[in-house]
C-alpha cells in the first residue's frame, strides 16, 4: 500500500507526536507514505470563513498531490475537511473554479483523498490489523472522540454516520480494548474559539473530559490535532480555571494502534503528550501480566485435575526447608 501524505502544519509542530506515530505505525504495517512536495497550510479554521481563500489554499495542495497517481491521505481532521470541502466546492461552483484556477495559474485536477482513520479501518482493514496486534489492550477502556470535522458535514465526509459514528469504536475493539458508551463522541471541543473566547472553549472541552471520566475511560482517543490541543494540551489550564482534577490521558488513534503493535513509547511520541500517558501504559502492562498469570494458573489448574503434578504450594513449601 502506498499513499501521498499531507501532514499539515501542526504535525510539523504542536502535534508532532501525531506525525511520529503515523509514520511509525504505517512503517510497521507496510504502508508507504510519500509526503507531497512544498505543501502549504490549508487555511485551517482561521482561514475557512473566507471560502474563496480557503478553497484556493487547499486546491494548491490537491493539484500538487494530483501529480502522482497515488491516493492522498491526511491525519488532520481540519486539513482533510478543508481539502474535501474545496474539492466539492470547485466541482459544484463553476465561478469559484474559475477564480481558483486563475489564482493558481493552472487548471484544477482533483485527487482521491481520505482521512487516515478511514484508510486504517476501511482500506488496511480491521481484520488485517487484528492479525498484527502483539500487545492486545485487554481490560483498557478507551473512549472514542470523533469531534466535528471528521464526520460533519456528511455531504463532504461520507465515511461514517455523522450522529453516531462507529469507525473508531470498532478500531478500539479490534485492538483488544473496550469502547465504552460515550455520549460526547461528536460534541465540539471548542478548539477554534480557544484564542478568542477561551472560557467557552474550556467549558466545551471540560464537558467532554468529564463525560469520559464518568464513562470510566482510561483514556480518550483523538483523531484531530486541534481536539488534541484542547483535551490534552489545555487540560492543565482547564483543571486550574475550573478547580477540578481530570488527569485523563488523551492519545491519538495512531498512538493507540502503535501500543497494540508493541511499538515503544518514544517511537510513538507518547513522551510528547502533555498529560502523561505513563499511567495508561502501566495499566496496559499490568493487565497483560495479570492475564498471563491467570493463563498460567489456569494451565496449572488443568495440570492438577489431570493428577500429574503436586500442588504448587507444596513445591514452595519444600523449597523453604
Amino acid at each position, binding site marked *: 500500500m502506498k499513499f501521498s501524505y499531507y501532514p499539515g502544519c501542526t504535525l510539523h509542530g504542536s502535534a508532532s507526536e501525531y506525525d511520529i506515530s503515523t509514520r511509525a505505525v504505517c512503517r510497521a504495517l507496510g504502508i508507504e507514505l510519500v509526503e507531497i512536495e512544498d505543501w502549504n497550510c490549508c487555511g485551517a479554521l482561521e482561514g475557512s470563513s473566507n471560502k474563496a481563500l480557503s*478553497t*484556493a489554499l487547499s486546491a494548491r495542495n490537491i493539484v500538487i498531490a494530483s501529480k502522482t497517481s497515488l491516493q492522498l491521505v491526511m491525519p488532520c481532521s481540519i486539513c482533510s475537511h478543508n481539502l474535501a470541502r474545496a474539492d466539492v466546492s470547485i466541482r459544484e461552483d463553476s465561478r469559484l473554479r474559475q477564480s481558483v484556477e486563475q489564482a493558481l495559474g493552472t487548471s484544477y485536477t482533483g485527487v482521491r483523498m481520505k482521512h487516515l482513520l478511514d484508510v486504517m479501518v476501511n482500506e488496511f482493514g480491521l481484520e488485517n490489523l487484528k492479525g498484527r496486534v502483539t500487545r492486545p489492550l485487554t481490560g483498557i477502556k478507551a473512549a472514542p472522540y470523533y469531534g466535528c470535522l471528521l464526520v460533519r458535514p456528511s455531504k463532504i465526509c461520507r465515511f461514517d454516520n455523522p450522529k453516531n459514528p462507529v469507525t473508531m469504536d470498532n478500531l478500539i475493539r479490534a485492538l483488544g480494548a473496550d469502547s465504552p458508551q460515550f455520549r460526547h463522541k461528536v460534541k465540539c471541543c471548542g478548539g477554534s474559539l480557544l484564542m478568542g*473566547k477561551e472560557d467557552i472553549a474550556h467549558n466545551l472541552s471540560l464537558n467532554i473530559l468529564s463525560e469520559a471520566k464518568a464513562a470510566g475511560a482510561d483514556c480518550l482517543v483523538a483523531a484531530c490535532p486541534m481536539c488534541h490541543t484542547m483535551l490534552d494540551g489545555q487540560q492543565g489550564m482547564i483543571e486550574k480555571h475550573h478547580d477540578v482534577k481530570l488527569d485523563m490521558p488523551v492519545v491519538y488513534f495512531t498512538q493507540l494502534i502503535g501500543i497494540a503493535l508493541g511499538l515503544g513509547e518514544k517511537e510513538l511520541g507518547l513522551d510528547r503528550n502533555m498529560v502523561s500517558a505513563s499511567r495508561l501504559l502501566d495499566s496496559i502492562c499490568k493487565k497483560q501480566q495479570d492475564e498471563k498469570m491467570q493463563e498460567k494458573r489456569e494451565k496449572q489448574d488443568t495440570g492438577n485435575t489431570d493428577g500429574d503434578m503436586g500442588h504448587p504450594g507444596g513445591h514452595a513449601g519444600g523449597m523453604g526447608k
Partner: protein
Amino acid sequence: MIKTEELDPNFKYEIASMPGGERIKYCFNCTGCTVSCPVNEIDREFNPRKILRQSLLGMRKEVLSSELIWLCSSCYACYEHCPQDVRITEIMGALRTIAEKEAHRGNIAVPCDKRKFDSAFTGSIKKHGRVYEAMTIAGFIFRTKGIGGMLAYTPMGLAMLRKGKLPLLPHGIKGKKQVKAIFEMMHR
C-alpha cells in the same frame, strides 16, 4: 425596537452572492440550528437563528459589527441539523468575510479577539506559506492579554519547547509567491 427605515433589504442578496452564503434565503427560522449549537449551550447570547433572522430582515450593521458572528466554532452541528439545508456554518463564514472587508475599509469596528487571531493566523500563512505557530500564538497573546497573559502561558510554552512541539523558526515553503498570489486574488 427594529426601525424599518434603517433596514437594508439588499443584505440577504449580498450574503447570497458570497461563496458559502448562497442558501440563506431558504431559512424559515425553525430554531433547529440554535438547539443543536454547542456554543449556545454555554453562552445563550450566541443564537444562530437570531443572526439568520436579523440578516434576512436586513439588519446589516447590527449583524456585521456584532462580536456574535465570531462565536461560531465551525462544528457543523447546525449544518447537519438544518431541514432547509441552509448550510449555516458557511453563512457565518460569509458574514465574517463581509464584516472583515467592512472593518478593513473603516466602515465598522469589530472589537473581537477571535477576529484578531484569525487575521494573525492567515497573515502568517500569507508570509510563510505555512502557519508559524510559535510567533502567531505568542504575538496574539501578547497583544490581547499583555505580559500577564504571556506569563500564564509560559509554563505550557516551555513544556512544549522541551517536548519538541514548538519549532522556534518558521517553515518557509518554496511556493511563497504562489501563496501570496492566492491571497491577493481571493482575500479582497
